[in-house]
């Protein structure tokens, strides 16, 4: 700490980026992009809007759902930039953008049980090569997958999901990339942050180093490459939608 404060005016770690557009400027065509959020809670809508404007195409998207109404992830799908989506629950009352693309055969769906999705993301971030899970054993979603009997129980072999980019939303962050989240908007943020080569976090507030209590930092800055402060429109949850 002392050494760092001494060279105050020299180059310092500063992951803060001025705008959402600058944060996503170098996303390549064909990239795998993880997008945080469970429904609209924790969805980084402004970063998604910036990605739409940036124009990268042929993307593989990883998210729990497949978009709600016409904004955020649904808008990205509508712009026809997404080749494939990996998710657990695409069908919702307001997922009509995805539904239409799916029925037209214009998007590929990899359906993954939600816990396997979370663990595959976690495994990627933790350097795990593959893991055996009981979830999905014997079902359509484990078809063709390697299985093993361990201590009298059957398991399915699942592989990690790595990403080129993760777009997540947190509550507060600092210039080193440390993050805290807000309530159930945390959901996939921490694990996606660890699983991508470049994690971009939009936060409601950037604070000074040391302001975040180190005992409660949820995502340590090592997992975050860029931070952008965006106030974010508070969107009301959709009451009729299902998980």
């Amino acid at each position: 700490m002392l050494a760092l404060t001494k060279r105050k005016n020299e180059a310092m770690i500063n992951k803060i980026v001025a705008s959402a557009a600058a944060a996503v400027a170098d996303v390549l065509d064909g990239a795998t992009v993880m997008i945080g959020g469970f429904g609209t809670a924790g969805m980084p809508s402004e970063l998604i809007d910036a990605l739409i404007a940036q124009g990268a195409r042929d993307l593989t998207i990883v998210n729990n759902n497949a978009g709600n109404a016409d904004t955020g992830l649904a808008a990205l799908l509508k712009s026809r930039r997404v080749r494939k989506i990996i998710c657990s629950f695409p069908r919702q009352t307001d997922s009509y953008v995805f539904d239409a693309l799916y029925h037209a055969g214009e998007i590929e769906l990899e359906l993954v049980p939600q816990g396997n999705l979370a663990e595959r993301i976690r495994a990627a971030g933790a350097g795990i090569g593959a893991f055996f899970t009981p979830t999905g054993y014997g079902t359509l979603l484990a078809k063709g997958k390697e299985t093993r009997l361990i201590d009298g129980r059957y398991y399915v072999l699942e592989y990690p999901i790595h990403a080129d980019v993760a777009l997540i939303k947190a509550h507060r962050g600092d210039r080193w990339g440390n993050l805290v989240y807000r309530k159930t908007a945390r959901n996939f943020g921490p694990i996606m942050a660890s699983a991508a080569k470049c994690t971009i976090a939009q936060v409601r507030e950037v604070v000074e180093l040391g302001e975040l209590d180190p005992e409660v930092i949820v995502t340590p800055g090592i997992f975050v490459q860029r931070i952008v402060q965006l106030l974010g429109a508070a969107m009301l949850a959709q009451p009729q939608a299902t998980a």
Partner: protein
Amino acid sequence: MQRFSRDQMAARVARDIPEGAYVNLGIGLPTLVANHLPRDREILLHSENGLLGMGPAPALSAQDPDLINAGKQPVTLLSGGAYFHHADSFAMMRGGHLDFCVLGAFQVSLRGDLANWHTGAAGAIPAVGGAMDLAIGAKNVYVMMEHQTKAGESKIAARCTYPVTAFQCVSRIYTDLAVIDVTSHGLVVLAIVDGLAFDELQRLTGVPLTNATTGVAA
């Protein structure tokens, strides 16, 4: 024929959940169980999207888009509740830490196989969410469903014709006609709706049942 109402079914499930239990209530009918849990009993509700100690729905003015349940409806957090990320949430489920989960179902088989995620119909968009993780993970898997389909077929069947969620996972079935335990010796009826004879329930169900009712209405 008399049937248990949705609230009566929910009340019966609530009655069977003890003090101190960690419980996940699935979307739909199981959500009603929360309304019937006695206020003086400490029961911790888990929601897959990262909260433990879920409280009731807030007033409209107190809704927070960052605080929702698995059905994406606004909820509250009780004092002592906690937030956590998705990998931890599913560790609680898959790792056997939940005492009970209550799920809706299309079908349950004689040996407790559960079908509740996909009709398998051509053109239907499949969606699984956390159903498979809950079904394999909770210590006790309770199912709430109507006893029969609209066409009058038993939803308790020799084997599931819908795509299976998990095999041999269901421990108890609450229907609008009966409460039935799934045991290694087959299906055991614990309670039947007033006015329905066991033989008639057996006829409507189509797979062998054992009568363990005490003759007292549920």
